[in-house]
């Protein structure tokens, strides 16, 4: 120790800011809701790698992924006025829109056979090289990876097949050769474990 008495470090983190007056995604979304294009531009820079990465993982096709990412960003612009901070973070809201759109697209456009083939090519490997080079992303990605490691194999596989590949739970059950109620339950208890590990319980965050 270089000092006998530690500095009093108040709450703070690289993402959520604290008393440091940092601008959150929620602030930017609120400004976007007023028609502020500059705020939307900044918000785009922050969230586009998550949106694009997620959409591309689900759709695979780069051109389609760009198209859907554009749709998602325009959706965020259009519906920013409807975002309700009381029902979750701006980040969760945006990624929920992105995930839903990508999944709807993959279900409407890709033949079932096509998607079955993709399972063979499915890789649970994390493409860390492609992770945006910010500490918050890296730190968060690392946390998520460690938390995923705490799940049982069936929990993790169920969640990954649904989230990253856009499968419905009956499809996941078929892939994994498990019963429907088992897969439903594994998805839920896996997410509960993930939630507890990541500390995303409402009101838990300091």
């Amino acid at each position, binding site marked *: *120790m270089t000092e006998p008495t530690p*500095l009093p*470090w108040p*709450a*703070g*983190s690289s993402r959520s800011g604290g008393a440091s007056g*940092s601008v959150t995604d929620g*602030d930017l979304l609120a*400004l976007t809701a*007023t*028609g502020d294009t500059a*705020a939307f*531009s*900044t918000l*785009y*820079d922050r969230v*586009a*790698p998550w949106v694009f*990465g997620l959409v591309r993982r689900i759709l695979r096709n780069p051109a389609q992924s*760009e198209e859907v990412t554009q749709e998602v960003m*325009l959706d965020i612009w*259009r519906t*920013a*006025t409807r975002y309700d901070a009381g029902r979750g973070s701006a980040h*969760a809201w945006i*990624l929920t829109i*992105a995930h*839903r759109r990508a999944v709807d697209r993959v279900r409407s456009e890709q033949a079932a056979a096509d998607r079955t083939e993709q399972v063979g090519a499915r890789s649970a490997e994390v*493409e*860390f*090289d*492609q*992770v945006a*080079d*910010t*500490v918050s992303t*890296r*730190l968060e*990605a*690392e*946390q998520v990876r*460690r938390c995923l490691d705490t799940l049982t194999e069936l929990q993790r596989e169920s*969640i990954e097949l649904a*989230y990253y590949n856009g*499968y*419905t*739970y009956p499809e996941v059950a078929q892939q994994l050769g498990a019963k429907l*109620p088992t897969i*439903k*339950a*594994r*998805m*839920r208890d896996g*997410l509960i474990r993930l*939630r507890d590990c*990541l*500390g*995303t*319980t409402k009101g838990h965050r*300091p």
Partner: protein
Amino acid sequence: MTEPTGPTEPDVHTLTGPYVLDALPDDERTRFEAHLAECTFCTTEVAELRAAAVKLATQVSTPPPPALKARVMSAIEDVRQLPPVVDGRPSTGVVRRRFGRRSVFALAAAAAAVALSGGIAIDQYRDRTAAERANQQVAAVLAQPDARTLHGAVQGGGQATVVVSAQADKSVVVLRDLPDLPADHTWQLWMIDRTNTAHSVGLASGDLTHVITGSTTGMTTFGLTIEPEPGSRTPTLPAAAMIRLG
């Protein structure tokens, strides 16, 4: 709960998992959303599980092609925003609170500063290319004419060294001979700013060399703490090492 899905579905609550993962087939999704509107428990659980599920997106984060942003920014000119919902119903007149240009630019600048205030964690999983890149980054900081080297002892043994360059606006942290931690604990690195706010700049499972690429301006102290896996949002005190950068 509505009648059709009522007592016949005893496991309706387990549907929060598949719902949050968008894994319900369309008809079940519609039914569950109807149930959700009446189930406070489910609503809370969905919000919580969703917060966890969206974190999975960090695993696949990929920067989009730069041209996409230009297309989006140009397209929004033609997209009309929905009127805000007031008291549960859309308001008729669109009320726009226009922020002054200055406040917008100040906010954008502040946001940009936040985006840049991080660093890069060097972890074992990174491939050789990344390691080489990191080495170059380390060398670049050390080569700065104004680079200053600061040492500090780590509680329990070991040494922490921070090399700071104001010119490069970067720093390098070197941790050596750290004591072993319990399996479920990790070292966490922090930069503490003038307001005494600690910003996490990475995790370490043992000795490492770590480049902090974010701005060092305004950072007064480097801190090293022992945290439960997978790291904490706020530091657990007392710190294992603290090095004043000033």
